[in-house]
């Protein structure tokens, strides 16, 4: 019974949690609820992934209405993996949130925080699992609106402006998506993704479909924060509470990438996306610029949180680059980096959250000499940074390996150079922090600072170790990513 309803439960459980959370009063109740919900979701998504790997694509008719009339939940290898990422990261971040959020948010707001938090996760999981285009829009808005709330809860007053800007841009992006979906419906008369894919097969020269394509790609890129549609990201990440930043960086943009993948490959197909409309050229250009500009901007930041935000823009560029190479290796690299970047960025933001917990600042000048006071925190940060650079034995290395292979396979040397330059720039910005923390003499006020509490360190280190583990044993990540890439390409009509 539970087994059959797995896909629905993954979305329904956090949704119920979001409704119940505000009722649990002002104590730690909401947090416990969030913990239970997130770990349950994690277990379920793990189960779902093993099932999909064993039996192939699962289809689930929501409410018993058979697709295409009802809403279909459809789980294949790709979204099973993304589901697992979202569930795993949110579970770890929830554990972390207890202390971190309690410090950054007023106690009377805590229950609403957890409500919005669970709602956000609901939306992200829903986007990933749904097989219905309009449903995707609704869930996107559910996750976005709760994200605006979460960002606005940040301690500094600038958080409100950041949230407002994100809201404006996010709503425009979502509305673009809505219009695009409308055009698709106009052209095909269906909203089910599988149906859409079938009917769009012969419509690549239809003008309505082309407009739909443009609207949807722009909308999804906004959510993904692909250059030049990234303007909302730095402020939102900088001013949001630490736990929220980690969650957003690791999951929200990944789901954005998923939307892009789903529309480009499954729905529009290779013929339309790449042979006729050459989306790959546009995305490649945007991604290349994102890698370089994002990294350069990261180097110039004094606030480490903002630095990591810009680094995210660069890393999103890597993901998009892999996707736009449109080959099995490239696509695997993109999906793999989606997974790996979630791990490393979450680890980095959590480590930074530990710092913020102790010193209430993330400015690089306030970090001077702190490594002696907080050795575990900065060891975690350094490890995450090494992964970001792509040092062997970390997940970052595996991503870079595949990305580079994919570009060399195609013989596109300029891209290979961009990937490498991006890595080198990452060395610069990571090392700025390392030097500040390890080599600069600490300020007088830093003498009284202690290591972050275990409640924050354990989740952080869990992610750091995951970074190392998936850098060595890549069966799960590489295996699933390659299989998903193959399936996507096969369903989209072979190699162009």
């Amino acid at each position, binding site marked *: 019974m539970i087994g059959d309803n797995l896909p629905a439960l993954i979305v329904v459980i956090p949704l119920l949690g979001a409704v119940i959370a505000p009722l649990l009063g002002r104590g730690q109740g909401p947090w416990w609820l969030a913990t239970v919900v997130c770990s349950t979701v994690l277990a379920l998504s793990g189960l779902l992934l093993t099932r999909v790997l064993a039996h192939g694509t699962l289809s689930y008719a929501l409410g018993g209405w058979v697709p295409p009339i009802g809403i279909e939940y459809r789980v294949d290898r790709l979204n099973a993996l993304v589901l697992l990422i979202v569930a795993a990261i949110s579970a770890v971040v929830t554990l972390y949130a207890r202390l971190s959020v309690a410090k950054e948010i007023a106690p009377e707001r805590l229950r609403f925080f957890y409500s919005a938090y669970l709602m956000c996760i609901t939306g992200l999981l829903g986007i990933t699992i749904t097989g219905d285009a309009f449903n995707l*829009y609704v869930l996107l808005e559910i996750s976005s609106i709760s994200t605006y709330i979460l960002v606005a809860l940040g301690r500094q007053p600038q958080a*409100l402006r950041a949230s407002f800007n994100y809201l404006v841009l996010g709503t425009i992006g979502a*509305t673009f998506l809505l219009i695009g979906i409308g055009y698709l*419906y106009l052209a095909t008369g269906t909203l089910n993704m599988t149906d859409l894919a079938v009917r769009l097969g012969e419509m690549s020269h239809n003008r309505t479909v082309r407009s739909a394509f443009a609207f949807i790609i722009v909308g999804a890129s906004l959510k993904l924060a692909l250059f030049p549609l990234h303007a909302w990201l730095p402020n939102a990440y900088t001013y949001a509470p630490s736990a929220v930043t980690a969650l957003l960086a690791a999951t929200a943009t990944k789901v954005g990438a998923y939307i892009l993948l789903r529309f480009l490959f499954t729905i529009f197909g290779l013929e339309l996306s790449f042979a006729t409309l050459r989306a790959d050229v546009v995305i490649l250009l945007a991604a290349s610029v994102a890698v370089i500009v994002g990294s350069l901007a990261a180097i110039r930041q004094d606030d480490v949180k903002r630095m990591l935000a810009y680094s995210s823009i660069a890393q999103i560029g890597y993901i998009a680059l892999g996707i736009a190479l449109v080959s099995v290796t490239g696509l695997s690299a993109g999906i793999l980096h989606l997974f790996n970047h979630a791990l490393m960025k979450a680890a980095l933001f959590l480590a930074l959250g530990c710092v913020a917990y102790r010193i209430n600042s993330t400015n690089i000048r306030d970090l001077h000499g702190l490594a002696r006071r907080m050795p575990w925190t900065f060891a975690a940060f350094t490890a995450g940074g090494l992964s970001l650079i792509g040092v062997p034995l970390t997940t970052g290395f595996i991503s870079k390996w595949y990305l580079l292979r994919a570009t060399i396979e195609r013989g596109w040397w300029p891209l290979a150079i961009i990937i490498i330059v991006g890595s080198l720039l990452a060395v610069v910005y990571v090392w700025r922090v390392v030097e500040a923390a390890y080599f600069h003499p600490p300020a007088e006020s830093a003498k009284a600072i202690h290591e972050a509490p275990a409640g924050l360190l354990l989740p952080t280190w869990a992610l750091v170790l995951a970074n190392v583990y998936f850098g060595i044993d890549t069966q799960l990540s590489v295996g699933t990513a390659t299989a998903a890439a193959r399936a996507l390409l096969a369903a989209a009509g072979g190699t162009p």
Partner: protein
Amino acid sequence: MDWIGHYNYWIYVVLMMIGFYAVIAKPNLVKKVIGLGLFQTAAFLFYISIGMVDDGTAPIVWGHAVRYSNPLPHVLILTAIVVSVSTMAVALALVVAIHRAHGSIESNLIDGSPPKKHE
């Protein structure tokens, strides 16, 4: 091509651009929110238009009806309206909070000056 016959599509595009302009050009945050509302509403108009069937009546079971409009876009847009209302609510709440924190809702004034202390 029937240019005039597609007037509601023209209107949707024009409305949308007016909204978009307000979002970009107006420094006042409330005006931005209004622009955003226009932008979204224009999209709803578009959806409702695509459900339109010539000579169709509202999709309510009624004995005299010859044919009905397509009900699906209408239903979809109900959902989208709910979404839009919640977005609006959050946006306005944010504007109120910004006013409290900065003492202004003119974005050009806020961005230049340091925020007041958080109470």
